[in-house]
């Protein structure tokens, strides 16, 4: 009986361990994406850009996403200077800009994707990449490490697509709930910026980071995005993400 108990305990531990190690880096990444990517999502976000001169620039952005971030639409609400301007990010990397003052729709050339989006620390490419992390990057676990008091898997993501300007990303994924906590962005093996996601709340079964901070190392600037309103799995028609509907 005692032997059986020891065997069962040992089997259980081995099984638990096996479950833990069974997850491949790609699966960890997939889980992390799945738990925070509903099919559709709407949010109203306040974005504060802290410049290196110490000034603050405040934006308000509405965003809609569909197909687990395959299509993302941003519409600026504030300040008045950019009100009504839209940016559409499509699977495959196409980015379209709509300028409300002129009514023009323009494709963002791939050379411009590295540019700052409305002066923030997020580039067009950063947003665009989010829809295809699984597909466009291969991943490997490099270590496990504590970040912000949470035990995390540390994954190295290397792009398989040529036109991505980063040569690697280091992602910190919390072990117990697979929430993405931090991403370091490297260009030519040099840390350019890092993104921290926190204040996670569960909304309709999905983990939503209510605060995202992107900090540029070189310029010592940062952009803080705070979600003010969020709606998950609502009906968003496909045409919302068609540039022809602007």
């Amino acid at each position, binding site marked *: 009986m005692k032997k059986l108990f020891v065997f069962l305990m040992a089997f259980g531990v081995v099984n638990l361990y096996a479950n833990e190690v069974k997850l491949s880096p790609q699966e960890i990444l997939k889980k992390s994406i799945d738990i925070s990517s509903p099919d559709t999502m709407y949010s109203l976000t306040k974005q504060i*850009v802290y*410049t*290196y*001169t110490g*000034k603050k*620039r*405040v934006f308000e952005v509405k965003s809609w996403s569909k197909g687990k971030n395959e299509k993302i639409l941003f519409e600026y609400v504030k*300040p*008045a*200077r950019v*009100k*009504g301007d839209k940016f559409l990010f499509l699977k495959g990397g196409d980015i379209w800009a709509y300028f409300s003052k*002129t*009514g*023009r729709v*323009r*494709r963002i*050339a*791939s*050379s*411009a994707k*590295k*540019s*700052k989006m409305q*002066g923030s620390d997020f580039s067009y490419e950063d947003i665009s990449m989010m829809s295809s992390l699984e597909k466009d990057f291969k991943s490997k676990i490099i270590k496990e490490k504590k970040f912000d008091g949470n035990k995390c898997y540390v994954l190295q993501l290397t792009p398989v697509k040529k*036109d991505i*300007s980063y040569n690697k990303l280091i992602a910190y994924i919390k072990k117990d709930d697979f929430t993405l906590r931090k991403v370091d962005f490297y260009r030519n093996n040099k840390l350019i910026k890092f993104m921290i996601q926190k204040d996670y709340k569960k909304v309709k079964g999905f983990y939503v980071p209510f605060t995202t901070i992107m900090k540029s190392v070189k*310029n010592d*600037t940062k952009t803080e995005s705070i979600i003010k309103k969020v709606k998950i799995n609502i009906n968003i028609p496909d*045409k919302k993400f*068609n540039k*022809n*509907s602007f």
Partner: protein
Amino acid sequence: MRKILLLLIAVIMLNNFLCAEFDINGEIKFSEMWYIFHPHWQLASDNFHLLDIYGINESEDETTKLKVRFQIRMKDNDLTNKIMCYEIIPWEVWVQFRDLFIDNLKLKIGKQYFEWGTADGIHPSSVLTPDDYSNPLSIGEKIPIIAFNVNYFYKSIKLYLIWIPQFIPAKMPEEFPLMSKSGFTMQEVSVVGFNSISNKPDIDYKGNGKAIKLKFSLLNVDFSTGYFEGYDYLPQVRSVVYSLSGTNQFKVTTEMFYPYMKVYTFDWTTSVQGIGFWGEIGIYKYDEIKTEIISPTGTDYIKIISKKPYANYITGIDYNFESGFYLNLQYSYGLPFVRGKDYLEDYIILSLKDTFFDEYVEIESRNILGFNRKYNFKENYEIMLNQSISILPLDDLKLTFALNEIDTKGEKMLLKEWKEYDSLSIEIKYSF
């Protein structure tokens, strides 16, 4: 029929506007330009102030959208000796219905703009909406027109059908050298400034315009092709009459008109290896336009535009460098305000832009070299240099200082009359 439709527009719009609550936004713009006349360095100033207010109402399901935009314009001009004059203009007033009768069908009725081509800044195919050349501080600004605009899209294909029931001409310069209308015509007759034109063209408000456009994407290239038929918003000279009025003095009477035209348009845009490429062409077809010159010695004719279609086009590339530096290079055959193959010149346009201090400061340099392949380049060219610096002290406040310089060589160049008009300008713009 036209009256009934115009009445219908008015009723639909009034009905929607009276019930709507508008989200109000706008802009206040103060701009002042100082001309520097060589060689005496005389200064003359030109002020233009603008209060631009617009209200938008969009239904929650986004099926109905209304826009009302009014402008209060104040102008003061040393050259025309005009003391501050005010204009209150209903600028854009339209109602838009989305998914009307069928999904993805949009109907926009009212005073609106049309952006026809996809090139950058210069649009040889943009012939639907007239330009305003009367204000040197925002030259070439589009004047909204009353139109019915029906468009339908299916995936990446979009079709536009446009009907313009009322003809609106371009606003021409009052005192400045006449560079619009086939600029040319006046250079051919070579005596009159705009002020001496005694017979401004009659505006045939009954004349209407129609246009169709198809946009589509193929292999990462976005194309559009279109057709416009209607009156040209730029006038041509029908006749110039020289009559004796006193000893050795001539009185010059010029009669102008708006010709009927057909324009076939085509444009494309793509991006290859990070470089943006685009092209836009307008193929213009008129009935032959001749100017009749009547003088005491007899009557003569100058052919301005032949029956044979001609093309006005532009092509360009741009690139964003990693540092944020932006480069844009274009070649244009003709300018949008010049009509007639014989008056088209070649332009190389180089624009450079960079931002500094976290995008609080933007420096832009726009440089144009114009030449005419018919003439010797060394003796006939024109250069336009525009350098500007913009500062963003607050999110919604933008100050722009600009220096504009024009130099031309040769008597045959289109912009030769502008040679004296170097200028400095300042613009303060506040968005709310």
